[in-house]
């Protein structure tokens, strides 16, 4: 049997890519939070050697794209993907059939506080929690998590950007007025600290919760808040029409709120997506552009009990570059 009859719509949803080479596809392996053990690498390598051309692309979303797979081998590759899917605990209805959708992209994350001194939380763990809550889904959502306001993962270029924050706790009795925090905040962050009567005053309006003061403090006068906080930026994007950075929606939010807001946004997108969108694919940011922020906000915060310290932006205005 030489001829190929494949439904490309299904192929794409099954996380394969139609490539520029006839009869050749690529398999896209999702790695939530960009964190995996070495076993996954070995399993990816085995597929690349046996069914691919030996080449693997590390994707911008922190997955693997196994190149050069024959379109005839997709079922076999899906079987081979099963241990990876189980290893990474990806939601799946039918084992051995690969990924159930591809619209909702891999949830990416910087290395976070597992490794990085600046990271304010375990980014991969939160990424996995979000992945568990949202995948599989055909709606086109991009989510990224970053440990601190440095935003190394470029969360602001995503539909949802989650930026770790800590509320610095100051014990004046432990402070020796060495100014390390003031210098650190000025040089590395937003210059939110100054000294009055040899003790530190934090400008709470300015503070971005990056935690630099805490890492610079030599006496533990500054420590992190027990609660972990997040800044949620929304509807950043790249693309042909209007690339833009995401804007702040919630400040000092908690994990539960963020998960609920994302799930609510899926409901919103399902309600308002353009039924004539090509391939049923309309980015959520463009849906909000059509429907309006206020309507989105109504849906996003539906049933959400916000922590008292969370700041919700009344309105959000995006800028960016307009090509049309």
């Amino acid at each position: 049997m030489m001829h190929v009859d494949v439904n490309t719509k299904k192929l794409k949803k099954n996380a394969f890519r139609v490539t520029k080479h006839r009869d050749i596809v690529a398999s896209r392996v999702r790695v939530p939070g960009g964190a995996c053990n070495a076993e996954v690498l070995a399993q990816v390598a085995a597929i690349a050697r046996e069914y691919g051309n030996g080449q693997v692309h590390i994707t911008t979303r922190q997955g693997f794209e196994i190149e050069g797979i024959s379109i005839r081998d997709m079922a076999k590759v899906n079987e081979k993907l099963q241990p990876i899917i189980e290893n990474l605990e990806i939601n799946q209805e039918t084992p051995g059939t690969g990924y159930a959708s591809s619209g909702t992209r891999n949830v990416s994350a910087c290395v976070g506080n597992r490794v990085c001194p600046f990271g304010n939380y375990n980014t991969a763990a939160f990424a996995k929690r979000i992945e568990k809550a949202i995948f599989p889904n055909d709606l086109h959502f991009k989510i990224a998590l970053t440990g601190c306001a440095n935003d190394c993962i470029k969360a602001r270029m995503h539909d949802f950007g989650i930026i770790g924050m800590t509320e610095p706790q100051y014990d004046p009795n432990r402070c020796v007025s060495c100014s390390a925090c003031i210098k650190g905040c000025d040089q590395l962050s937003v210059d939110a600290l100054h000294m009055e009567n040899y003790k530190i005053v934090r400008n709470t309006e300015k503070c971005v919760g990056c935690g630099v003061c805490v890492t610079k403090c030599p006496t533990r006068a500054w420590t992190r808040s027990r609660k972990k906080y997040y800044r949620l930026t929304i509807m950043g994007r790249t693309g042909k029409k209007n690339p833009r950075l995401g804007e702040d929606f919630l400040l000092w939010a908690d994990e539960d709120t963020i998960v609920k807001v994302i799930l609510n946004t899926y409901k919103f997108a399902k309600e308002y997506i353009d039924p004539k969108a090509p391939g049923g694919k309309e980015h959520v940011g463009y849906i909000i552009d059509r429907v309006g922020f206020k309507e989105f906000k109504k849906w996003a915060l539906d049933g959400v009990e916000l922590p008292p310290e969370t700041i919700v932006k009344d309105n959000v205005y995006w800028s960016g570059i307009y090509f049309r």
Partner: protein
Amino acid sequence: MGNLWNKEALSRLLENLKKDYDVFAPRLYAGAGCYSDTDIVRYGIIESFDEIVWDEKSDYSFKEALLPISDTIMYFTENSVKIPEEKRKRLIFLRACDLNALKRLDEIYLHNGPEDFYYKNIRENARFILMGCSQSFKSCFCVSMGTNQAENYDGYAHPTEEGLYLELKDEALSTYAEDISVPRDSQEIQYVKENEETVPIPETLPENIASHEVWKEYSGRCIGCGRCNFVCPTCTCFTMQDIFYRDNENAGERRRVWASCQVDGYSDIAGGISFRKDQGERMRFKVLHKIQNYKNRFGYPMCVGCGRCENVCPEYISYIECLNKLSAIGGNSHE
């Protein structure tokens, strides 16, 4: 002779002690470390003997239990001055290295010219329980410094499977245990006999050691954060701060605050002059004070080999390696 204290007996003992004493011991501060989701062990008032951390060395020394980091020593307004109320008595649990450091603090604050009024007040009302060391920890070199054993303690303790083994030598302290019945026992005092690190102490450094090139590399490496001083049980430097209250500048207070010879401002004097601007010079000042200059004056080194400065340095500057280098230059007693 001592006693074996079970949980219930210990909680009664602490209740008795708390009537007069703040009990300070190394305890875990969860999430209070420098980095996210890291803890530290430092001194604080305990509410239960279970809180005492035995299986780790405290990141910060016992010093803050005796010398507050930032201490108001007088209030003033117009023509009057008031000294704060006397602080509560304190009972401090500490290891042999720190108890040897106490001797250094006493030397500086009590036996080096006029007695320090504030230190003396706290010190006279402080009692010390030696914590047995069943193991040597990372970067400990107490054996090299001869500080692995200690004298002049008011009590001794180490944990056992049957409870806390506690000897109360001080008569006044024993009265707090009088109404509690606990089995008598006699156990050996636990102390470290060998460290992983054997550190040579330089003996005869050349006269020009201050200008030696060995210090140069630290100029570029040290960031002057002062952590080595703040964790050190023997650093005694402080600075004074006069504060005028913002709402009423006719009243204020004077504070005594820990100072660090590594941090900018330490050697500043009138006229904008600063003696040691270079971090290499500051490193030289600190290290030579710990192992040479103090010794020249008092007959024994200041450093007690607790290794905390080694463990805390964010730039991985090894004080032990520095002593090795100095010994290569000046010879040492272990040779």
